[in-house]
């Protein structure tokens, strides 16, 4: 017992002493030696078999009292693997690239057409990365996207990340994290989709801004790319993507108007408060099909084309009409999405998976010819819109 005590004390002291001497090795990195990577872009390289890898790092700049804006350091490298790129970058940057802070992976269009798997493997295997990074598909080159000089001065990758995270409020494009992409990929029957990001010059799509340079200085996420496995095989436009959002139960809040239906009538715009989509396997026209039941709650906050004040009773009728018109809008969006699915004959809506979940026995019989089946698989749509209120006014101001 006595000896044990001496032993213990000696052991602890020796360990502590040796540890003090040994600090500095064993994978230790001081924070200021790190160069946090926040954005990663992939394009095809000039040489076959190589990739153009764009890495956006962030470097803090220390002011007198406060920390001023972060400075961006973006490199593009042509390498055949990410590790090679890592090596190349380490040669020029004196700091250690740190992957743990990566926010966004931007995939170039050309690379997407050639297949993603090779570049994404590193990001899901190396321990510093996490499966919660966002994936976006660039229209054009990923390099250009990441090199965009934002007018607001924010770092491009941060801008994309914030844009995606605030996307819930408009729900016009899907949020795809790396992990989600892999999970969908593993389902086999479902085609993964990734939202599309593009540069907008002043004047593009009705947006104008003041800019000194001729380069585009804003980015916009709109639409999505559909993949066959890891190969890009088509794009969804804005409307089709919106349809996808309804059908996949991903709409949280939406801004919606009925103007496109018929300009002459009274039109409404409003905010979708929430929406739920339910799926039922049902016999449609004699064969088994899938029925979507979408329930939407809307608050009307814009009424267009009203010329005079109406009574309370009339207003009730008007709102009922508004419900129908909103229903029509949503149905149109969904239908265009169905249309696209048939056109591409790719099941990005996950219809096969819904069938499998609800009727596994039937799924087994169609599983093998699913590619062919999608083209004319029967679906039906049941949209129910409820208008909660019409804002602070139950009528409109009169114009004389």
């Amino acid at each position, binding site marked *: 017992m006595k000896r044990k005590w001496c032993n213990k004390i000696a052991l602890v002291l020796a360990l502590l002493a040796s540890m003090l001497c040994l600090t500095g090795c*064993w*994978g230790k990195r001081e924070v200021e030696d790190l160069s946090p990577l926040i954005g990663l872009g992939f394009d095809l390289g000039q040489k076959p078999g190589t990739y153009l890898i764009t890495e956006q790092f962030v470097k803090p700049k220390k002011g007198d009292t406060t920390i001023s804006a972060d400075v961006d350091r973006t490199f593009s490298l042509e390498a055949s693997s990410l590790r090679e790129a890592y090596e190349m970058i380490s040669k020029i940057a004196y700091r250690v690239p740190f992957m743990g802070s990566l926010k966004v992976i931007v995939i170039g269009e050309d690379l997407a057409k050639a297949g993603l798997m090779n570049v994404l493997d590193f990001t899901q295997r190396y321990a510093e990365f*996490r499966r*919660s990074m966002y994936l976006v598909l660039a229209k054009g080159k990923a390099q250009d996207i990441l090199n965009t000089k934002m007018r607001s001065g924010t770092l491009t990758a941060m801008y994309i990340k914030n844009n995606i995270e605030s996307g819930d409020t408009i729900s016009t494009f899907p949020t795809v994290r790396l992990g989600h992409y892999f*999970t969908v990929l*593993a389902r086999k029957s479902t085609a993964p989709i990734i939202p599309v990001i593009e540069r907008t010059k002043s004047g593009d799509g009705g947006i104008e801004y003041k800019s000194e340079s001729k380069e585009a200085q804003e980015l916009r996420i709109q639409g999505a790319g559909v993949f066959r496995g890891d190969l890009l095989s088509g794009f969804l436009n804005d409307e089709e993507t919106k349809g996808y959002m309804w059908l996949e139960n991903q709409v949280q809040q939406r801004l919606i108007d009925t103007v496109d239906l018929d300009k002459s009538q009274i039109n409404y715009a409003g905010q979708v408060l929430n929406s739920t989509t339910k799926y039922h396997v049902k016999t449609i026209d004699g064969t088994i099909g899938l029925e979507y039941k979408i329930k939407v709650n809307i608050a009307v906050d814009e009424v267009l084309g009203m010329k005079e004040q109406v009574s309370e009773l009339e207003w009730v009728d008007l709102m009922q009409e508004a419900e129908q018109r909103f229903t029509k809008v949503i149905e149109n969006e969904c239908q265009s999405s169905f249309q696209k699915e048939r056109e591409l004959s790719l099941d990005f809506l996950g219809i096969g998976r819904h069938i*499998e979940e*609800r009727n*596994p026995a039937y799924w087994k019989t169609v599983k093998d010819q699913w590619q062919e089946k999608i083209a004319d698989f029967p679906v039906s749509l049941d949209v129910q819109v409820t208008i909660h209120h019409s804002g602070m006014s139950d009528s409109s101001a009169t114009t004389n």
Partner: protein
Amino acid sequence: MEKISTHQFMTLGAAVLMGGTFLLLASGVTEASGRDGWMTVLPGFTLAIPYGLVVLSLLVQYPHKNLLQISEILLGKWLGKSIGLIYILITGYYGGLVLAVLGDIYERSIMPLTPLWLFYLGGLLLVLYLVGSGIEVFARFSEAVFPVIVIGLVLNVLLAIPRMEQGELLPILADGIKPLFFGVLKVMPFAMEYILFLAGLATFLPTGKNELGQLRTGLWRAAFMVGILDMVVVIIQILVFGPVETIRLANGILELGKLVEISRTVSGIESLFMGVWLGALVIKISAFFFMVTWGMESVFNLKGLKWNYLVAAVFMGIALGFTRGPYMLRELAFVEDYLMFPVALIWIPILWGVSCWKKGTGVQ
């Protein structure tokens, strides 16, 4: 003579039964039974109950003896001793492998550049301290740490809920019940590890009539608690990753820890969870360390500090011999499935049968 209380029996049992199962289980059962893999976890663990009851009934007949000593009494000296030898070899080997797992998960997931032997050393230091302080302290350690492990698991699961994909658990039982059987087979060895531990622990259990009832309750409580916890862990992995990805991911629960985001700012807190998992693995390694020392004590009558150091050196040696991660994991599965599982599966019923038979003849 050291003794442990009935509550400690439960938490100690649960902690040993749990060990590091939550790290590896999901991949195995999902591979065997697909999307329904989670259903196999609980039945697999409940196998510990009948076997545990058999051990407890032997305990009643031979109080304060472990099963190795009982085998010597029932099966004769040499047969008993050779069983003891097998027991020592298997548990020693497996203990070393679990130590290697500890190093492997740390190196793989959060500290890739730290030398492996440091993890082994840190783990062994804790194990030696625990073993040196005796079974009572070990029991109290598991009593204090097991709730923390449970909280860690539950937190990990709860925080991962926002990352859930739609309906990954459906359809339930699409391929019928048959694949479940293979999943159960995957889980059963873990229950058997626990039974082997119980075989050695028997010496320290209270044998009063009241306490025996409490031990039985403790037994099934431990099995169900661990079964349900592990089941939840498997469910959440299938829900977040989908079955195919669950099979592919090396340590799903660690990946889950990385995914966790607290209000979109603090993320990747797996290194915090790793501290808790370390406790779980230390309990498991200590349990096997204890098993080796009990075996050596009852077979060769060797005990004392220097033999502890020897066992520690052997553990370290085995762990250092398995620095190839995938190879080590295969070996681990091999020991579980083809050594520990059959040994416990056969040895315990034989002992019970012989003791019943002896009792029968003794009465006549």
